[in-house]
Each structure stands twice: as C-alpha cells, then as structure tokens.
C-alpha cells in the first residue's frame, strides 16, 4: 500500500549524542498518512532515542521535525500529544494501582465544572462512557473500572493503545509492542493496527524481530549504530537481507548445535506447587525430569509461574508442596547456598537486580558465588590476590570488555555484564544450569556468544533449564520444550517437531495436551 501523498511527519538530519556516544547520527525519516512504517534495528541501534526525541522526552542536538510540512518544536510529551503524536511504550506507562479510567484521564483530567482548577471534582463517569465508546469504535474493549495491576499483559496493552487514542493521537508510535505477547496476541495486535490505519491513523512500529517486519510493514527503515542504513519494503526484501542490513554482517539466525546425548536425570521435580506472597497458587502440580546433556526450554507468556518455579528450584522461595530433587538429593527446602553447593548454576532473569552487585568491581562480582571457598578464602579470611588472579583469567577467557578488573561492573555494557555472570556461573564445576531470559536486551553479537556457551555447557554434560520469553530462542536452543500456562505445564514436546503457532496456542491456554505418563516415568 504505497501512498503518494505528502508525508504527515518528517525528521530531518536528527542528531543526538550522550557524552561521546552518538545515539542518532543525522537521521532522515518520513511517515506517510495511513501507513505502517517499521523502524528496524537491534538493541542499542538508536531506535528508542529517536522516538523519544519525537515524543519530546529528549531534545535533539541538531535537526528538525516537520508535521504536515510545518516545522514544529517538541519540548515535552504535552507538545507531542497536542500535535497528535502518541506513544505506546515498551514498558507500559500505566499506574498499576489505579483504574483504567483514572489512567486514561491522567494528565488531561476532565472535571465537573472548573471552579477550583486542579482541585475540582474528577468527572469519572463521563470518561467511562467515552472509553466504552472509543473501545467499540476501534475494537478495543476493556473494562474501564478494572484496576490495571489485575489486567493481563494483552489487556494492559489494549489499555495503553486506547490511552493514546483517547488523547487524540493520529500518529502512533509502538515501541517493541510484541516483546511480551504470544504469537496469537501478536496477530491480534496486527489486526488492530490495520484497522487503525483504515480509520485514518498512521503508525511507526519499532522492532528487532525480522519476521514481524515482513508481516505488517508498508515500508521499512533500518537503523544501525545510530544511522539509517537502508529504506525498503517487504516486497523488495527478505529476512536474510534485513538481517544483513540490521547487523552489518552475516549472522546465524539459529544457533548451530549437534545431536544431544541425554544422560542420567539431574533435576527431578515432582508435583511441585507454589503459593505467591499474596497466597495465590502460581505453580500447580508441576513435574519435570531434566537429564544431563540436554537443554529443556520452558516457553510461556511472562507471569505464568516461570519466575516462581525458578525461584523455588534455586531456593529463593519455599514451595507449597511437592519435591525438587537434584542428583538424588532432596533440595525442596534447602537454602540457596546449599543448592549452589550441589553444583547448580543460576543465571537470573534480572541481571542487575539479582545477578550482580553493581557497586562492586568486576573482580569481586566474578567470585560472588565462591568467595567463601578455597582458593579465595579459608572460610574466614579472604585472599585478595587469588580473587584478582581469577578475574584476569575469566576476563580473558570470556572476552569481557572492561577497562580493568577493578572497574565497577555498573560501568559495563549490558552484554558484558551478562558475560560476567555467565563466566562466574559456568566456570564452576556444575551439573545443572538454570538460565532465565539469557539474552534480554542484548545485541546480536552478545546473543550469539551466549548461545554458543550454553550449547557448550550442554555438550559437556550439564543439564540446562532454559526459560525465555523469546520463542525463537527457545526453538533454536532447546532439545525438549515445555509450555507453562497459568502455573501448569500444559505441553511437553521434542524440539524437532515444535512450531511457533502450536506453541502459541499452548501459551494462551487454548490448547492442552495430556502428558504421557510413561514418558515421564522412564
């Protein structure tokens, strides 16, 4: 659908630097009315910076923005909204403890009368009606009285889009909206996007997922290292070409790995149930057997019990009932340290929150699991020279890019921070590797490296339990795949026979598979 009208939005020569880093380097970009233009680029390419400039959250160092051929200045989000630009953020910008209605009013509140200015009474009823009407118009039904924290991810995203429409946006920026969705929810989102286009809206769609690009784009702009490196359309391009443009070199789209040779059972989970802090059963009767030398991938939409499952296995959370057995040792109620000591490595979901002490040096972070053991300590006193030796070794071996071993780990890039964790966890003698969202937010180079290391560990006979929200990651690394939905293992399959659509159905709970008992008891 090519449009020959004048662009509704143009960015001319936009440049923005942070210190010595040039995030956006003289970018030109046009958006035509009623089109979906994809902005493609990997993490750190400068997509978000560009959109934040457009939305008024940053100011460009150079360049200009034109709306309908008119030069405009966007100082803050208020200006952007006034000009009809709305943004659906990757992390939902909704206040969890407030209702849908309150969230939509926020920033531009309707009141009953205006006698007391900002202290007039909120007019919730009118806004409720407007939300219902708007929802009907665009096919985005939501309950206006629901509290946001009770909504599912998909629903919250509908609220987020509705919010932007409610504020009168004609240009919608969607920032990585599919990162948290199942394949089915993603298709639904694409439907919604097309219907919005028909009703006169224009959309900028930001992503790094190549398949989505071809499915939804009218036109594509590719960003690399802060520069636009190409404009194309789905018809003129292929996944391989886009990948080459995005990364700048040939990339392996799937990790290469040999046949797996499963050995003895390392991790045996029997009928595990876990209650959350708010007394909700978040994992129900979960059973799993993981063998040495295989990678078991757990797919599922975030928040279906994966995090709690991992916290229970690693001892961070007490399960409600059931058993966890690692190498014939019952560790159901063991402490995290006891579980570490039986040879478990854990690469946590949130590397900055759990995996690292950001205020400590790289060297110290590399011994975070072993500082109390020989050779680093005799149990009481620490030997700093051993810690330093170890750091030099690991920095070399795992190619950690750091100014020095004494540099604070907070100064490292995300990819190198993750390498510190991988180095620490994999260089111990381990039998079990538990790895949650190993590559979230990383660039392609780091992703390739980390995938390689995980497969190496498997080939050395480590049992790997992988949890990831990225279906592609699950599909390319796993030997076996299980799907979690609402705290249950709803399907288990060999990775060879698995496909995205089928997994997606399990992930949304619309399909369940009777598990083969004999398969488990073998």
């Amino acid at each position: 659908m090519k449009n020959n009208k004048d662009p509704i939005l143009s960015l001319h020569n936009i440049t923005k630097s942070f210190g010595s880093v040039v995030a956006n380097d003289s970018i030109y970009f046009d958006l035509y009315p009623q089109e979906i233009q994809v902005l493609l680029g990997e993490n750190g390419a400068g997509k978000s910076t560009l959109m934040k400039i457009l939305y008024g959250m940053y100011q460009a160092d150079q360049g200009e923005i034109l709306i309908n051929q008119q030069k405009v200045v966007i100082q803050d989000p208020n200006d952007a909204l006034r000009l009809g630009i709305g943004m659906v953020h990757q992390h939902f910008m909704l206040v969890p403890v407030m209702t849908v209605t309150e969230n939509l009013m926020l920033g531009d509140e309707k009141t009953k009368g205006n006698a007391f200015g900002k202290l007039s009474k909120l007019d919730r009823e009118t806004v409720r009606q407007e939300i219902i009407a708007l929802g009907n118009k665009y096919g985005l039904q939501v309950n206006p009285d629901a509290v946001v924290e009770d909504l599912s991810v998909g629903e919250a995203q509908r609220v987020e889009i509705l919010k932007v429409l409610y504020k009168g946006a004609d240009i919608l920026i969607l920032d990585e909206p599919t990162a948290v969705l199942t394949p089915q929810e993603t298709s639904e989102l694409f439907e919604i996007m097309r219907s919005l286009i028909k009703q006169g809206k224009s959309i900028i769609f930001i992503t790094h997922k190549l398949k989505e690009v071809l499915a939804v784009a009218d036109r594509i702009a590719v960003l690399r290292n802060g520069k636009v490196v190409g404009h194309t359309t789905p018809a003129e391009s292929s996944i391989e070409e886009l990948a080459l443009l995005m990364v700048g070199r040939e990339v392996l789209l799937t990790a290469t790995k040999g046949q797996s040779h499963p050995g003895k059972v390392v991790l045996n989970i029997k009928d595990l149930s876990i209650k959350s802090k708010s007394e909700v059963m978040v994992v129900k009767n979960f059973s799993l057997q993981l063998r040495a030398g295989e990678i078991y991938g757990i797919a599922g939409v975030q928040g279906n019990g994966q995090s709690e499952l991992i916290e229970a296995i690693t001892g961070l959370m007490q399960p409600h009932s059931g058993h966890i057995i690692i190498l014939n040792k019952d560790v159901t109620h063991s402490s995290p340290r006891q579980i570490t000591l039986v040879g478990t490595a854990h690469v946590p979901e949130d590397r900055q929150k759990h995996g690292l002490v950001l205020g400590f040096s790289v060297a110290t972070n590399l011994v975070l699991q072993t500082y109390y053991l020989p050779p680093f300590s005799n149990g009481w006193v620490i030997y700093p020279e051993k810690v330093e030796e170890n750091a030099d070794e690991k920095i070399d071996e795992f190619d950690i890019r750091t100014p020095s071993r004494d540099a604070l780990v907070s100064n490292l890039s995300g990819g190198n921070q993750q390498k510190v964790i991988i180095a620490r966890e994999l260089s111990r003698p381990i039998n079990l590797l538990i790895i949650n969202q190993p590559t979230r937010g990383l660039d392609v180079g780091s992703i390739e490296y980390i995938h390689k290391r995980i497969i190496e560990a498997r080939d050395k006979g480590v049992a790997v339990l992988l949890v990831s929200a990225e279906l592609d990651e699950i599909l390319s690394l796993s030997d076996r795949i299980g799907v979690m939905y609402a705290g249950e293992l709803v399907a288990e399959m060999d990775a060879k026979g698995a496909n995205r659509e089928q997994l997606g159905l399990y992930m949304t709970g619309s399909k369940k598979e009777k598990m083969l008992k004999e398969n488990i008891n073998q």
Partner: protein
Amino acid sequence: MAIFTALLVSSIAILLSGASPIKAFSALAVGAFGTRDNLIETVVKATPLIIAGLGVALAFRGGLFNIGVEGQLFIGSIVAVLVGTNFDLPKIINVPLVMLAGALAGALLAAFSGYLKAWHGAHEVITTIMMNYIVLRIITWAIGANGPLRKPLSIVPETRSLFESARLPLLISDTRLHMGIVIALALAAGVYFLLFRTVLGVEIRIVGKNLHAAKYVGINVKRNIVLTMALSGGLAGLAGAIQVMGIPPYNFTTGFNVGYGFDSLAVAVLGSIHPVGVVFSALLFGAMDAGARLMQLRAKVPIDIITLLQGLILMFVAANQIIRSLYHLPAPSKEDSVNLTQSWGGE
C-alpha cells in the same frame, strides 16, 4: 572543601549573633591544639567518636542506618556502671569485663532493632530513634530522685563512681589521656580487616549494596542484618563504656555524652564510611568539641554553634555535588554511595 564551606556558612551565624568569626575560630583552634593539655583533650574527646563512628560506618556498609547510636552508647555506659560499681575483681579481669558488658548491652539493643527490621520489616531509622527515647527515659528514671542507680545523698542525678579496678589506666599520668585511644585505633584496624578481608565483611557489604543479589548468592540476609546491627551497636556500647571507665569522676550523669550519637553519624559520613576516614574525622570533631569551651569564653559564641557546624559539614559532605558545583571540581571517578532507602517499604 565541605568543611571550609560549612565554616563559611556558620561564620554568618556567628556574625549575626554579634561576635567575630575569626576570633571565634582562632579561639577554637587554640582550644583544640594550643597546649599539650588541649591536644590531649582533643584526643580524649575524639576517642568515643572514633569507636561509635566505626559502629555507624559498619552499619552503613551493611545498608543499615543506625541512628540509635545515642541510645546504644547510653545503655553501654549505664551497664558498664552497673557492673563496674558492683564487681571489684582484679583490674586485669575487671576492665575487659566491664567493657564487654557495655558492648554487649549496646549490641543487644541494636540487634533488637535489626531483628524488627529483618523479620518484621520495621525500618531501623524509626525503631532505633524510638529506642533512643525509651533508653533515655529509663535512664532518667534509674538515676532520678528515687531511682535504683542514684548515688546516695547526691543532689544531682548521677550514679556512683566505678571501682578503681574497673577504670582504664592512664597513658600519661596526671593527664586525662587514658587507654581508650589505643583501643579505638585497634578497633579501627579491626573493622577495616573485617570489612575488606573477611568472608563476613564481604557478606555485610553485599547485603548493603544489593539485598536481592545477597539472597541470590545464598547469604542469610536476616541473620546478616541482625549481626551487622549487633556489631554496630556493640561498638557504640563499647564507646559508652569507655567513656565512664576513662574519664573522671568515672560515673554517669544526665548531661553526659548527649549528642555523641549524632556526632558519630556525621563522623562516619565525613570519613566516607571508611575506618581510616572515621579516625581522622573523629579527631576533627574532637578538636571542635575540645575547642568549643575556649571559643565560648573568648568570643562569647554559644557552644551550640558546633552542632550547627557539624550539621552543615554532614550536609555538604552528603551533597558533595553541591560542593563540586560551587568549586567547579570534576566528578569523582569511583562512586561508592550507600543506598538506605532500598528497604523503606519493608521487604
């Protein structure tokens, strides 16, 4: 720089009260360093600040804000008095015994706040401050008119003096310089070793920097919090015990030690929560305390200007960014901040 700016600002306060800041501060300097006895007084005043300041710094490293040093110091003193006025053992046993009793009292009091935080999520800032008031009231009662510790026939609220065997030996006879400073310096070395060279120290610092990571690497966070508070309170209690054991008339009265709790806080922050820094900043504060009397005498400036000065120093050190922008200094390369609000909501 922070100290210099604080001096400038407090000069304004002195000017407003009609005195001369130059006269005031020179009197302060003479009072602190002018004679041998003044110098000794500076050291004597700095001694409890070093020990209590180490306590605050230790807690800071563990992510805990022990603002209850005042109460822990008081209870350390009073328990030291309790033991030191009732047991008259040989000096070689009695001195360590009385010190230990004081330290233990402070440790228990602080550990209770640590327990409330670790198991019940009550923020230590509030519980330790409440403890300060509770301890103060109980002590006021204990040495009040009919209190059990009141020195018989005394007209002011005070306790009996410690037995000779419970007093700290003097380093130089006929002066006020007692053994306390040696103990304080040894403790500084000990705290340094503990924090940076031992397994326990690493664990304290991990908990202080990142609670989640601490749980992830398998540290028993709750136990660690209680232990850190106990160590911190133990140091404060010891500071209190050493005060009554080292300074004539070797007893406890109400006006005694007031303000040491908050001063030690400022000392710890000014000393960049590092044991060596604490020693130097405590000496500085000791000098200010020692010189204040002469300043009041010569320049007619109330002693409370010192509290103000110390508050300002704390502010400018904490907000070192203000100082950097005032003097156009470059930002430091290594950040070593503490994060005390990480558990404000209670986790």
